[in-house]
């Protein structure tokens, strides 16, 4: 049973997708609920097993490496699968509240999202360079149609831009895989890593191709242009899934490559600092853009551009602290960003727009939504007590330990800029309405508990992560492959 869990974690969500394709979400979302349970259960069991027993491996069809495909669930995989499950379940509940089940959008969501879930789990379990390519494509192909659910022209052009770039990125990645296969004759990450020792220009070229491809998919500056439009125009649950999980998938693969087959080429100081430089650019540029956006959802989307930048700071630090810090940051961001998007979506749903200047004075009527936004914002700003703060603390320790003072300053500056854009929204909530508009309560559409609670729970989880460093880092374990 235990060694089948990785397979179930991939295939049960896919099965749920197929069932929901045939049935629709059903009356009262009953089928959808069943699909959520079916998808989440194997993930959670798998995480528990990894926590108890350590790394679990499964050889597909019984074929051994190098011919067969290996699925591997180590601490990092387990953490990402757990993040996906927790965010996934809560966002699903929100979606149950948001989508009218007679809508076409509802039907499409409940097919695409379980497929996306299965694809994400498959990616997190892949221990094989080519399998990672396939699963990353599945993630992209399931994610892009989700963007379209909003149905606006803006969403269509964003989706198209995203698709072309993503396809290009995956071709680059595949070219890199081809080079590595040519050199080593294997695709298994571990075996390839062993045979690549010693390097050479071909390895460097392969690394350059693969990393560039992944940076495009992860929307790292300067490849970020598609993200704000795509994430900003999608329906709230979709934005939450894209920002919390999908872009993380590409970064996850980057971390995998760094801690495995591409350790040597990516550890060269020039490369490591180039990547960190991109991270710094992302943090500063994304935050400044977030400060200037007129619409709430665009603020949140640009915040994602900025927050992803932190994850690239790992490369020049290359120690256990940085590894833990980057991953903790990623997990905390996933939870908090999902909450932020759901809260923004709720605000948009309630008053029909999300123009920040016109939100003035709505704090009292939208108290719960703004409260959720504020609580999630604490983690995004990296202020205590929150998961974002622990991630920042670990990263600061890592940078100062490595003597990189200026990186520490960038991290702190990023936090202050984040405070700037979070409080810009909260200011609108606290400010009195214009005097001429006084007495005119803005028309408010009420949201049900299904929409209200998941966002708040996610936001509170972001706070709870501020106290959960011990168990989660124990689950993460040491750096794989003895990197660093």
């Amino acid at each position, binding site marked *: 049973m235990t060694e089948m869990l990785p397979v179930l974690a991939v295939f049960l969500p896919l099965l749920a997708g197929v069932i929901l394709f045939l049935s629709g979400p059903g009356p009262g979302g009953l089928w959808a609920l069943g699909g959520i349970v079916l998808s989440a259960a194997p993930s959670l069991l798998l995480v528990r097993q990894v926590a108890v027993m350590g790394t679990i491996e499964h050889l597909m069809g019984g074929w051994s490496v190098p011919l067969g495909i290996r699925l591997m669930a180590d601490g990092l995989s387990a953490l990402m699968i757990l993040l996906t499950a927790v965010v996934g379940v809560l966002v699903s509940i929100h979606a149950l509240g948001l989508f009218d089940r007679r809508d076409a959008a509802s039907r499409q969501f409940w097919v695409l999202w379980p497929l996306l879930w299965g694809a994400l789990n498959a990616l997190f379990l892949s221990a094989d360079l080519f399998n990672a390519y396939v699963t990353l494509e599945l993630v992209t192909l399931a994610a892009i149609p989700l963007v379209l659910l909003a149905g606006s022209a803006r969403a269509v052009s964003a989706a198209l831009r995203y698709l072309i770039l993503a396809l290009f990125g995956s071709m680059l990645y595949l070219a890199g895989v081809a080079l590595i296969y040519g050199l080593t004759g294997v695709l298994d990450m571990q075996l390839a890593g062993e045979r690549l020792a010693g390097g050479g220009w071909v390895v460097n070229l392969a690394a350059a191709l693969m990393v560039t491809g992944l940076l495009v998919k992860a929307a790292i500056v300067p490849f970020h242009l598609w993200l704000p439009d795509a994430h900003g125009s999608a329906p709230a649950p979709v934005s939450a899934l894209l920002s919390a999980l999908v872009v993380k998938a590409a970064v996850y693969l980057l971390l995998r490559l760094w801690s495995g087959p591409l350790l040597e080429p990516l550890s060269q100081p020039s490369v490591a600092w180039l990547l960190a430089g991109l991270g710094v650019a992302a943090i500063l540029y994304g935050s400044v853009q977030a400060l200037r956006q007129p619409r709430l959802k665009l603020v949140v989307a640009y915040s994602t551009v900025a927050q992803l930048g932190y994850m690239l700071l790992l490369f020049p630090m290359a120690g256990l602290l940085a590894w833990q810090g980057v991953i903790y940051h990623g997990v905390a961001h996933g939870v908090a960003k999902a909450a932020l998007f759901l809260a923004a979506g709720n605000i948009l749903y309630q008053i029909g727009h999300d123009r920040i200047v016109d939100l003035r004075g709505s704090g*009292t009527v939208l108290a719960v939504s703004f409260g959720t936004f504020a609580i999630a914002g604490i983690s995004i700003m990296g*202020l205590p007590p929150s998961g974002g703060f622990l991630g920042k603390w670990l990263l600061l320790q890592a940078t100062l330990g490595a003597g990189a003072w200026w990186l520490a300053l960038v991290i702190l500056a990023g936090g202050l800029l984040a405070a700037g854009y979070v409080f810009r929204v909260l200011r609108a909530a*606290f400010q009195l309405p214009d005097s001429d508009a006084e007495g005119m309560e803005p028309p408010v559409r009420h949201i049900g508990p299904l929409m209200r609670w998941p966002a708040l729970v996610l936001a509170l989880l972001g706070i709870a992560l501020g106290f959960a*460093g011990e168990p989660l880092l124990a689950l993460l374990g040491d750096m794989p492959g003895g990197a660093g």
Partner: protein
Amino acid sequence: MIYQALPLWVLMTSLVAALVVFVAGERRHRLRITVNLAAAVFKLLLVAVMLVGVLRGDLFLVRFAVLPGVELILHADALTMLFTTLSAVLWLVTTVYAISYLEQRPNRARFFGFFSLCVAATMGIATAGNLFTFFVFYELLTLATWPLVVHNGWPKAMAVGRLYLRYTLGGGAVLLLGIVALNSLGVPGDFLAGGSLDGVEKTHRAAVFGIFLLLLGGLGVKAAVVPLHVWLPSAMVAPAPVSALLHAVAVVKAGAFGIVRVVYDVYGLEVMTELQLGTLLAAVASVTIIYGSLKAIAQTDLKRRLAYSTVSQVSYIALGVGLGSPLATVGGLVHLVHQGLMKITLFFCAGNYAETHGIHKITELNGIGRRMPWTTAMFTLGAFGMMGAPPLAGFVSKWYLGMGALQAEALWVIPVLLVSTALNAIYFLPMLYRAWFAPPADREAAAGLAEARLGLLVPTLCTGIAALGAGVLAGLPLSPLSWVAFIVAQEYGE
């Protein structure tokens, strides 16, 4: 176990109160008032139990590991109790005042929710057992006070809120940098009497010096040390109970308390002397004392004048700590309590004037003593206390500071104290003269007695009399002065 975790329960009392108030919503006035008062009284009881416990030498400690090698520690030592007791007492009084002050105003649930959260953060700061924990609550305090500062929602309040965040969050970032840097030298930053640097200053002299500047920079923002004080006078747009809270109980005290912790329990007096950091701190504090008083004279707005007075007075704490001699320490620490009692009285009075007669400017005080004799009497007590007139609380502080300066052979401090006293008199006495002796501006203002309503007046009387008592009864056991002497005996290992 439950007894040992008392610091946690003290903190939770306010936290739970905050949650209940938020959840109960705007309309449940009766429930909100009950919860607020019950929590404040209950907390006071818990603090009293803990006070006795600390006196008996019981151990209060809660630890929780949040990261490998990083712990949240709540503990209670004598210094903790000084701050905790002050906050718990003043919270009860301020709650009563705020309930009355905010009657019939909108958004009360939000106000009292954040108000309680603010006190929870203050309790966390007081009971923090290491720098990490301190920082967690220090930032939480920033987050909890911002909604109070901008509570009115006026454009001016929003602008001030932005200024407040810039300073406090910026200061927080600098503080965090200092704490992490200290950690990367291998110092966990635990608060231990006598310091916890463990000899690191010998190997990393420059780094330890630089880190102190970072810590001071971060803490100095909330402690309103010049030139980081700018936010404090502006924050006057907040409602009066908030000003009282900012100035007397929570925010500036959090900064000052942090400085005390860093000096005594992280760096330790030996290192402070060896690296000349004490002198540096005393010098910065002296500049602030003089500058704040000079600026206060120039103000025409009552609350702004009081605010600059806070800038000046809070630095007495840093001055005493910086001088480092036992008597100076007594003066500095006891001022933590004394300034709190006196300043909260003054702000309550300012609130009473504004609420009852719409008085904001100092010139409008003319003849108010006849209409609001009780309030004005308390204002007078507070003002004389601030000037340091015997036998009021402020005199005790200044006396020990002066003696401490002599003991530390820092004679330059004596003129600072004298000049400051003179300046205090220059900005307080004219106000008192106007209030008692100047003729009222118009006939209506001369008409009979019109005191503040009871809910505002009673808290004012309580704190005013406490400020008087702290001075007159300073010799009694369990007076702030005796307690501070108890702390100092521990810190100096006597």
